[in-house]
Structure formats: structure tokens, C-alpha cells
């Protein structure tokens, strides 16, 4: 065997192999080195250390790997390290945001914060009115958007064709990009026509949010319905099934898990909206759970107003703003977990 191969390990072995810890070791070493050099130059900072550390580590792992493992492995090592660094870079804002919100919001989060409103309290109170408002406004927006969005998606995938379909898809894409304040102003203008100027209602906020939510629901539902294989539709047709029954009994159940996930993502996207609600639902201090009567508070606007116009104890107001932000993130997270559970439970194998 050694007669055939120039390498001592046989024909299949092209060289040695680096130890398992090599990428981590190289990165830590490179980071330490760049930290030391930067400190010596008097311009140390974490950001610069990481940037130089990654660059240095890429060079180091390439040379080391090339010497030991050969050129192909060396390229593989460098690209792996570059991609891992890009991933870490993308995670930094998310992790630091979560950490910061948790750090500042947790002290303000208490049972009273969730159960009390802020009526007649000069400084303090809770965010129950905002929590109720958020749930009601978002809930009504979902009730409006989901049927419209899913039916529109059914039209686009199952019925529509040609120019009309292309035009609709184009306008849905345009709608996805509408600035949220425009949606708020649209809802305000619409309700002002009927109820006169200065009108503020919970349902106005829901209408504004629907304008933002419908295109997201259409887009996600359309993608999901498209991947329902055509052979299932044909199997149903071949049994003599009318088209509408094929859609309601075969296509929609097959796509159910994906549709739910899409709706949850759409909810998560709109639940934290602030601008359109400022102009439609207004600001209020007490619990109002009737979307058709009076103003309504929600968590995002609550956080905004606590920050914008703090009470006598500014620190306490800021703390409540952070707590509201944390609560909002928690709701979004719970929604995502529920969506995942629904998906696991109901997903259908699509081949």
C-alpha cells in the first residue's frame, strides 16, 4: 500500500488533521493577541478586538491547516470560521437586546404591573389596561385579517390566473412595504368620515393593523398553499370532488400547520406597532376592553408615553416602560412557542 501512496497513512489519507479544539483555540489566541496589541497602542475596545481577532484567526487557521491538512481543508476551515463569525455577529444585537430588556424590565415586572391599571395614580400603577388593549386590538385585527388574507391567498393560488393574478401579487408586495403610520392615518381618515374628527376607538387601531397584517398573511399563506402538491388536488378531482370541497377538505387541512405558523408570524409582526395606534386608539389610563367604545391603551404606546412624559419619579416611569417592553417580548415569544407546538402537532408530510 505504501508503495502506491506517497503518504504514510495510505491512499485515502492526504495529510494530518488538526486537533478538535483548533478553531476555538486559534480564535481565542488571536483575540487575546489583538487585545494585547490594541492595549499597547492605547486604543483597546471590545469591537475592535473582535474584528481583528476574527481576521487574525482566519489567517492563522488557514496557514496552520494548510501546513498540516493540505489546501482543500484549509479553505474549508477559513470559510467555516468566516460563516460562524457572521452568525455570531448577527446574534449579537438580538442577544444584547434581550439581555438589556430583561435587565431593565425585570425589576418593574410584578403582579401589580399586570393586574393594575394607572387610573388616578399620580405616579406608578400598572399596565393592565395596556395589556388588555394590546390583546383586544391585536385579536380584532387577527379576526379581520386572517379570513381576508387566507381567502385572498386561496384566490391567488387556486383560482386567479394571468395578468390579474400578477397585478394582485404586485400590489400585495407593495402593501407589505406601506409605512405603518400611513396605515394608521388611513384608518383614522376612514373612521373620521363616519364619526367626525378626533375619533379614537380600539377597532380603528385594529383596522390600521389589519392593513399591515393582511399582506403578510396573504404572502405566507400563498407560499404554503403553493407547496401543497398538485397530485393531491388531482386525486380529489379524480374522485369526482368539486373544486371548493377539494380546497376546503384537502388543500387547507394539508396546509393547516403552515397557515397557523404564518398567522402567528404576522401577529408577532404587528403586536408591537406604535405609530398607527397613537393616531387611532389614543392614550388612556384605565382598562377598556370594548374596542367599539372609547380610547384604548396598548403596551407599545404605554412604553412610549411612559418614556416620553415620565411622572414625578422619572426612574420609576422608565422602569415601567422597560417592563412593558419586556412583557411585549414575552407575549411574542409565547406566540412563537405556541406556533411551533401547533406546527409539530399538525404538520403533514408533504412530498
Amino acid at each position, binding site marked *: 500500500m505504501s508503495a502506491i501512496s506517497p503518504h504514510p497513512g495510505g491512499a485515502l489519507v492526504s495529510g494530518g488533521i488538526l486537533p478538535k479544539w483548533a478553531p476555538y483555540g486559534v480564535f481565542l489566541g488571536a483575540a487575546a493577541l489583538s487585545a494585547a496589541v490594541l492595549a499597547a497602542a492605547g486604543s483597546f475596545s471590545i469591537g475592535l478586538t473582535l474584528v481583528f481577532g476574527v481576521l487574525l484567526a482566519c489567517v492563522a487557521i488557514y496557514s496552520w491547516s494548510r501546513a498540516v491538512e493540505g489546501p482543500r481543508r484549509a479553505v474549508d476551515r477559513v470559510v467555516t470560521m468566516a460563516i460562524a463569525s457572521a452568525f455570531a455577529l448577527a446574534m449579537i444585537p438580538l442577544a444584547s437586546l434581550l439581555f438589556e430588556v430583561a435587565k431593565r424590565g425585570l425589576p418593574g415586572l410584578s403582579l401589580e404591573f399586570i393586574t393594575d391599571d394607572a387610573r388616578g395614580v399620580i405616579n406608578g400603577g400598572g399596565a393592565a389596561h395596556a395589556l388588555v388593549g394590546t390583546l383586544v386590538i391585536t385579536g380584532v385585527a387577527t379576526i379581520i385579517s386572517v379570513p381576508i388574507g387566507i381567502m385572498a391567498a386561496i384566490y391567488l393560488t387556486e383560482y386567479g390566473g394571468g395578468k390579474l393574478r400578477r397585478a394582485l401579487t404586485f400590489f400585495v408586495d407593495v402593501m407589505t412595504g406601506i409605512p405603518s403610520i400611513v396605515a394608521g392615518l388611513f384608518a383614522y381618515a376612514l373612521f373620521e368620515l363616519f364619526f367626525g374628527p378626533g375619533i379614537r376607538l380600539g377597532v380603528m387601531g385594529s383596522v390600521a393593523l389589519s392593513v399591515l397584517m393582511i399582506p403578510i398573511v396573504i404572502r405566507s399563506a400563498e407560499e404554503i398553499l403553493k407547496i401543497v*402538491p398538485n397530485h393531491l388536488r388531482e386525486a*380529489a*378531482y379524480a*374522485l*369526482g370532488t368539486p373544486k371548493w370541497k377539494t380546497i376546503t*377538505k384537502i388543500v387547507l387541512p394539508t396546509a393547516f400547520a403552515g397557515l397557523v405558523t404564518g398567522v402567528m408570524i404576522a401577529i408577532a409582526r404587528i403586536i408591537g406597532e406604535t405609530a398607527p395606534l397613537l393616531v387611532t386608539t389614543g392614550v388612556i389610563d384605565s382598562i377598556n376592553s370594548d374596542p367599539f367604545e372609547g380610547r384604548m391603551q396598548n403596551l407599545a404606546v404605554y412604553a412610549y408615553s411612559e418614556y416620553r412624559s415620565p411622572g414625578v419619579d422619572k426612574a420609576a416611569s422608565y422602569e415601567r416602560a422597560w417592563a412593558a417592553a419586556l412583557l411585549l417580548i414575552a407575549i411574542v415569544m409565547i406566540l412563537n412557542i405556541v406556533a411551533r407546538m401547533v406546527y409539530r402537532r399538525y404538520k403533514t*408530510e408533504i412530498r
Partner: protein
Amino acid sequence: MLGAADKKRSAVESGSEKVAETATATAPGDLAQAPMAAKAKTIEARNVNLYYGAFHAVENVTLTIAPNKVTALIGSSGCGKTTFLRSLNRMHELTPGATVEGEITLDGEDMYASGVDPVRVRRLVGMVFQAPNPFPTMSIYDNVASGLNLNATRIKKAQKDEVVERSLRGANLWDEVKDRLDKPGLSLSGGQQQRLCIARATAVEPEVLLMDEPCSALDPVATLAIEDLIGELKSRYTIAIVTHNMQQAARASDLTAFFNLEESGKPGRLVEVGETETIFTNPTQKATEDYVTGRFG
């Protein structure tokens, strides 16, 4: 090879007679309604031309699918066999831009006459597809009953049970699945899934069964099981089967129609149709002989 297949088939047939007897013993009422001995319907195609948009896929086919016989459609890929088959239950027009010219009749009634509901045509002319396609959201039981459920046929649970059992027995699948009817249809093996699809197609009691390469995704053992089944089903149905497998056409069919494509881009044509034995041993056309002997295509 043919001899072995025949022996196996006759064994299965005598087995299924036993099965039929027990079924009669348990459920005499409903079986009387089943068109067991009834003559199935004839499909006649006259001067049929099929198009996908501007593309002329099938040219001038005149062919009779005889009742209670198995008609095999053979020919090289792209010669229009499947397209022609799909025009026989108005599935062709589901493809956007696809059009049909000519006349196709079911026992003398024009399928494409205005006022004919394609949904009704497909109730009478069922179809089994190339790849097994059970509904992924449904159990084995619900897959078989899906035709009844989807067509809003209001029947009692007991009756539905009966139809499901009869269809699964008819598809030689009952013994393999009777203890797990509530399991998903996709939990079955490929061959079982295809027999499930056949059971699903027969549960609505069509007059004609169209099969589009029903065995192309299956192993030889499962293929033989399906071929045996086809042999049994022809006593009740008119069957047309598209196949790329020469032995399958020789084994399973009574009549064979050979389609050919002169060159790519040209429409496919029906070259010759006749008794399967004649087509395979003594065809009148040179192209047919070349194809069935494997010299071409």
C-alpha cells in the same frame, strides 16, 4: 414467466372468491347493490386532438376502450399516452391552457357536451396515478372513505364501514391493514399505498378505472400484486392502463394500443390497436414491432 404469473393469479383469484363469499355472508344487503356482474361502460374516442396551449400533443386518435377488458396504452415517453388518458375523465383540461377537440363518449353520451359537469364525469371515470398519493391528513379508513365524504354522500357509519371493507378487500389490502385502519395512509409501504389509492378510487364505484403507470414507483413484488388486482377488477370495471413496461402490458392487458411520436415537437399518434397477443406477436406496423421487441424506444 407468464406461466408463473398466471398460476399466482389463479391462486389469488380463488382466494378472493372465498373473501367474496364471507363478505356476502356478513353483508348480503349492500352487496346486492354493488355492480358485481353488471357490464361496465364503454369509452369511445373519435378524432381526438389534444393541445397544451399552442402545442399539439395528441393527433387524431380514434380508440374504443372496451368494457370489462384491460386496455394497455404503450409507447415511448412524450408520445401522449398519459395526456390521452387524462382526457378520458376530463382531467386534461385542469392544466391551464389545455384544450380538447373531437368527441369522447361514455356509453354513447358525449363527455364534453355543454351542460356536462366534469365533476360528474370523474365520478364515473376514476383514476389511479403514477405515484401513490394518499391524502396525508387522513387515516387509512378516511382515505378509502374520502370519495364518499368529499362527495357529501350521506350514508350511515355502518354502511361506510362496509364500503371501506369491501373496497380494501377488493384491493387485496384488507388483511394487511384491518387492525390499523386509524393509522395515517402514509404509514403504509409504497405498494400498499398504491393499493390504498385503488381502493379509494373503487370506493365511489366508478364505471371505468384509468391507471397512469400505476406500478412505475413500485418494486416487482408490489407490481405483481397490482397486476393481479387489475386482473380481478376487470370483471367489474372497464380499465385503461398506461405503462412503459412491455411485460406488464403483455401480462395484464387484453387489448393494446401503441402510440408513437414521429419526432419530438410533433404530436403523438395512435399507430395501432388490437388484441394484446396480436400486437406483441404479429403487429401490422413496423414501428409497433420495433417498439415491442425493444429495438427502439
